[in-house]
């Protein structure tokens, strides 16, 4: 889309674009290129010599059993977070979309967790599920479950999934509610007259109509689970116990910042970039289709 009426000025548009472009070039494009370059170099242990190794770092990363284990953890973690927060969000949105009293109050009371930082969400749930002081943690031990997220990998994974999903419910709720409110009421009335039950009306009319939003949220939640949950994991488990909660993002951080392994951590960054690229491309393809029908 283009404007017909424009201003004529040679230098001004460049001046206006300069700050944004400068930041993107220096802090986005340049580091991304650096990551690609570093991912094909290998440093000797003393950092004295650097050698071009092509895809050796990628091969080393992708054939490492630890990396494959954290890939598996990431898949389990992001699918669980996406599914849990989307299902709860959709359910609450369907409820809040009904013609009931106080619908706006419910909306207000359901959307504030969006404002809570992932790391803080981790701290809040830690306090509840702490094995020796947490309210739920203690109750679990009382009923005979040896609950301890610092010892058992599956307990830890469960806890980070809960903390990461809790914060994300509001986001999904809000988008689903907006989508539900744009479903034409006449369609639903017509189906009701034809005798379709409310369950039937939901799955045959509403659900297909909101599928673009569902797909969009699927992508956004995957990106959230892959990257933004770093704080949850860092605050709760630090990737442990014995790597049970180490996602790809957390591993890239450990290799780059803690273990200072530039080559392999850059290779991991490049892999993560490819994942974001893929998700974004998928999303835009779908949005395009939606616009043109």
């Amino acid at each position, binding site marked *: *889309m283009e*404007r*017909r*009426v*424009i*201003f*004529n000025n040679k230098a*001004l*548009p*460049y001046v*206006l674009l300069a*700050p*944004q472009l400068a930041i*993107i*070039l220096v802090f*986005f*494009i340049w*580091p*991304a290129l650096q990551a690609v370059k*570093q991912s094909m170099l290998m440093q000797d242990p003393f950092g004295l010599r650097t050698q071009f190794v092509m895809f050796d770092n990628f091969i080393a990363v992708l054939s490492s059993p630890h990396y494959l284990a954290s890939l598996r953890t990431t898949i389990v973690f992001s699918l669980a977070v996406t599914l849990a927060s989307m299902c709860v969000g959709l359910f*609450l949105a369907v409820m809040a979309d*009904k013609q009931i*009293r106080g619908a706006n109050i*419910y909306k207000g*009371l*359901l959307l504030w967790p*969006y*404002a809570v*930082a*992932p*790391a*803080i969400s*981790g*701290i*809040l*749930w830690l*306090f*509840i599920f*702490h094995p*020796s*002081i947490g*309210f739920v943690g203690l109750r679990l031990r009382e009923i005979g479950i040896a609950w301890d997220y610092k010892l058992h990998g599956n307990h830890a994974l469960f806890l980070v999934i809960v903390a990461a999903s*809790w914060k994300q419910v*509001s*986001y999904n709720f809000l*988008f689903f509610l907006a989508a539900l409110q744009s479903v034409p009421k006449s369609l639903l009335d017509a189906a009701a007259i034809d005798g379709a039950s409310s369950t039937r009306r939901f799955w045959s009319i509403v659900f297909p109509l909101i599928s673009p939003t569902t797909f969009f949220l699927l992508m*956004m939640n995957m990106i959230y689970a892959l990257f933004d949950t*770093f*704080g949850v994991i*860092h*605050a709760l488990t630090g990737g442990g116990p014995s790597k049970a909660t180490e996602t790809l993002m957390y591993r*890239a951080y450990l290799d*780059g*910042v803690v273990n200072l392994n530039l080559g392999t*951590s*850059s290779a991991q*960054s490049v892999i993560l*970039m490819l994942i*974001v690229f893929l998700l*974004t491309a998928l999303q835009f393809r779908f949005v395009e289709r939606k616009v043109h029908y």
Partner: protein
Amino acid sequence: MKHFRQLKHLPTHFYLILGVIVLAFPVYFALVGSTWDPGTIARGEMPLIPGRHAVENYLQAWRTGSGERVMGAPVATMMSNSLFLALAISVGKISISIISAFAVVFFRFPGRMLFFWTIFASLMLPVEVRIIPTFRIVADLGLVNTYWGLTLPLIASATATFLFRQFFLAIPDEMVEAAKMDGAGPLRFFLDIVLPISRTSIAALFVIMFVYGWNQFLWPLLMTTSRDMNTIVMGLVHMIGTGEAQTDWHIIMAATILALLPPTVVVIAMQKWFVKGLTETEK
């Protein structure tokens, strides 16, 4: 008939109230924890109702951020750092995005689409995936432990640029004609017409960006090593440490409640703009 309808909605109310309770539950616990003494919490005897130590716990957290076992920076310091970060990021993102969208929409110049796609490409490079190379560049520029290093790499915004672009494309040509006929140059047009009619978009973006800035974690974690530069979110994670039972939970929980207040208040107070901003920018 009316009564019948209200009864029919009982399960709906039940599920919604359940949802509200489940979402509020962790924060309620933190709130209760912030009002008890450390001994009660460490023995696992904390009841479900608030205790009597609220005032002293909050004052201690605010002034020192430390207790017997926790050594933190004063919450007051960390919160003002976070406030600075959140304001710098939101104001910065909005300012540079509104002028770049203005340039792309209201001018024709060589390289226009190239620049537009360059901004678009930044969408695919979240700070997390380029964290290590970005850190090295900021370190090379000597910006570690400075407010510039903390904020500058985070203030480019493809989403804000897109939102403003969409909005500017919808401004009627007649309006631009009229302004030009009255002798307004591009800057006058920007200041007197574009800026005032963009108010709601600016408010909507502000809520989203403020929350984004306040909640930053990984970047401040790498960028600030000195304690008086700590933001509240990363400072809290430092205070938690390994999460021992014997730590000063009363201080940590008071600090947690204080940390989540500002973004939550902004979201609730500006709910209308928040919903608009979220559903329009990200779609």
